[in-house]
């Protein structure tokens, strides 16, 4: 004759099972939030890498004397940080000369050996709270081994990139999670220094329960290889 489980046994076993399930779900939750958190970070990093690859490539092929920067700060209320009120962030503009097709026979000037700069590449951060990093190729009336005289806040740094003057080709949005973009010329070292900060928001941060709010920051120091004269 078989005996059934007593109420006490059932309660104990259910209790144990609950603890086990809680543990399992806890681990699962931790794994899931870690996955999302890692994805968030990885996404930020890969966006930054894409932006930096493009920036580094354009700057490296350029000439220091053609690099111009437009400093700009915006005052915005960031999502999830409303309690901190307005925050001041750098959303600069950077413009440098470029050659659209390096493989064309006319890419190099036959008389001097210098690149035949035929366009300018513009990078800037938009002014929205969740900013975008825009890359555009522009061809103003005068292109050459000198700064783009038309590059300015008014002409070239609209939140709607299609409103920018002299643009040609495809406009690329390198990041939609831009926190700040700072570009400076260092006249002594002749380096262009770019600071890029991206901000990503996600679900709960693993282990803490707080909501994920990650910032990823990269600094790029590039010497434009086609700088002439070199000093």
């Amino acid at each position, binding site marked *: 004759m078989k005996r059934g489980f007593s109420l006490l046994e059932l309660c104990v076993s259910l209790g144990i099972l609950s603890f086990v399930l809680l543990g399992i779900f806890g681990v699962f939750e931790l794994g899931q939030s870690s996955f999302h958190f890692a994805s968030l970070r990885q996404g930020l990093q890969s966006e930054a890498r894409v932006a930096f690859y493009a920036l580094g490539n354009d700057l*490296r*092929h350029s000439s220091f*004397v053609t690099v111009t920067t437009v400093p700009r700060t915006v005052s915005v209320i960031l999502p999830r940080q409303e309690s901190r009120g307005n925050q001041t962030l750098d959303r600069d503009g950077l413009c440098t000369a470029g*050659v659209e097709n*390096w*493989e064309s*026979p006319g*890419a*190099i*000037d*036959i*008389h*001097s*050996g*210098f*690149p035949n700069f035929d366009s300018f590449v513009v990078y800037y951060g938009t002014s929205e709270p969740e900013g975008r990093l825009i890359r555009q190729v522009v061809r103003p009336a*005068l292109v*050459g*081994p*000198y*700064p783009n*005289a038309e590059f300015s806040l008014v002409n070239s740094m609209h939140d709607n990139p299609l409103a920018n003057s002299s643009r040609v080709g495809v406009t690329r949005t390198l990041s939609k999670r831009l926190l700040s973009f700072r570009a400076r010329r260092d*006249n*002594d070292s*002749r380096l262009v220094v770019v600071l890029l900060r991206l901000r990503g928001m996600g679900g709960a941060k693993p282990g803490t329960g707080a909501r994920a709010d990650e910032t990823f920051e990269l600094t790029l120091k590039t010497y434009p*290889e*086609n700088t*002439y*004269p*070199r*000093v």
Partner: protein
Amino acid sequence: MRNWRRRGVALFVVLLVMFVLLTLLGAFVRVNNTNLNLLGLGLTRVQAEEACNSAVQYAWMRLDKEADWGSPGYFTSHSPHEVLGSRLECSGSGTTVTGKVNGTDMTFTIQLFNNLNNASPDEPNRVPKYAVRMSIEGRSGNARKHMEVVLRKRAFVDASAVAQLRMAVTNPQPMKWNIDSTDRQLNMVRSNGTLLGPNPGLGGGPSQIEFLRPAGTPAAAQGPFGSAWASDEITLGTTALSGNSAATTTAGVNTKGQFVPKTGGSYQIPDLKPEDLTGPTTERTLPGGTYSFLIAGTDVPAVPAQEAVAEVPAVEAQPEVGIPGEEGYQPAVEATPAVPGRAAVAAVDAYTQWNQSLVYTDPAGHVQVLASVPSGEGHGNDYTPVPLNRDVWVPLALDPATGARTDRSILANLKTCQIVVAPGIKAVVPSGDLRVDGQLGSGNLALGTRVEGAQQEEHDGHRGHRRRGRGNAQPEDEALAQPSSLEALDGNISIYGAATGWGAIVSHQKDISLRMRNALATDPDGGVALYAGGDVTMLSGRQSYGVDCSDATFLGLIYAKGNFLARANQQNLNIEGALVSKGAIDILEARNVNFKYNPDFLFDIIDTTSQTSATRLEQVSLSIR
């Protein structure tokens, strides 16, 4: 039965655990493999790029040593294999060089287009003059990188005027400062201190500064065609530009250039030593002292009036029409400058162009008359002016064998009041100063001019050939193309009148003083027109008897270890080449100042025959893909 059931459960559990573990292991292996592949791919790409960089550095090093390295036929007359230490092995064939970095799988191939020794571009291979283009493929594993690099000979400086302390080009009266260049990409003036220039049209009125449009630039282009750099403030007219973006922008637009004040950095002005200079090697000694042309009489014939010569008008630039290679295509025509006419020479009642004596005062104060106009030829007791009917050439150089003044390499002409240095001769003043004084605007120096009766002497090597690198055609009058030079080893050089001709004036340690009536061109091989261990000073000449100071024109490098001062008295100062001062540059009261950067004069400034490096190269472009 119960045991079998339990065994079945145990087996199931064991299999399940093994499955889970194997799945985990598989996933782990796969993730790691992917990571390793990604890492390896990134590594090989970096290595391929580094292989390209190694190739550039290797080729640069080889070209520094031998400018014809990798040119067609080079590897048939030189060993094609080279091993550098234990790391790099290279071999050349034709115009291709392959290399391997030992201990790695990094290799590279360089396709060379060497045009370093040619003064004209290699159009089919798209190589500029005095340059080499390298098409490099770097490999590592499966990764490949392609790099295109152009290196070219480095000019002595990169600006038409470079000042260490200050640059000031001013005139209270209307003036024009033109900044021009034969290099399409490089048109600059630099000051490591302040830069003071005339008004670029700030507040209205015409701009007194202009960066000229390079030849071949579209006529519609409005610049900037050049730039002015200053480590400190740039002041144009009375306006300081730093911190004044509106004025800086307006000045840039008006002058078709850009102004960069307070750069913070400092341009490294290359050091140039007298022993580095190239030039003629046949030396003749000219004793220092004062050489004076003195007037012997006062009643002299009148100079008749002469007609003015009309200006030859400029040809306007014509833009390119059509597409190259297609029917109806017309190439662009570069503008030609107007050739200025010559003003009429007014009649002068009494002009003592001749009628001279040459007096020499040595450093100890002893005076002797070296030559005088013979009696009856220009002055006589009867005061009847009789023009000279022949030149009077007085030998000034000391004969190397006897020490007497019999050598005819350096002569004085009483008719033209000139001291003339024969072509191919280096006139050396071993000690003391050299002053060529004169009256009425006389007391001239002529370099590299053919002299009747002067002996043409052989000089070493091929330096001095004016047209080296400009085609093989040598002029028939080769002797005329040989430059000469005048060098004072420890004293000053002062020329009262005009310094003209083909060559260089060099004061190793002290000053050079000239008047604003020079026309001195240098040899592109030598490059230096004036070299002073101290200051270079140009003052306006004395106006009398219709002889006025006039324009000063220099072709070549003017290098002053001290200051450069030109007080132009409303005349023009033209410099094509470069003006370099390790002190201050002050150009005052000039009507027009025309600077034209011409690196052709600046490629071979330093005589590198005694140094290990034969070529100074610089990278002018680079692309990677």
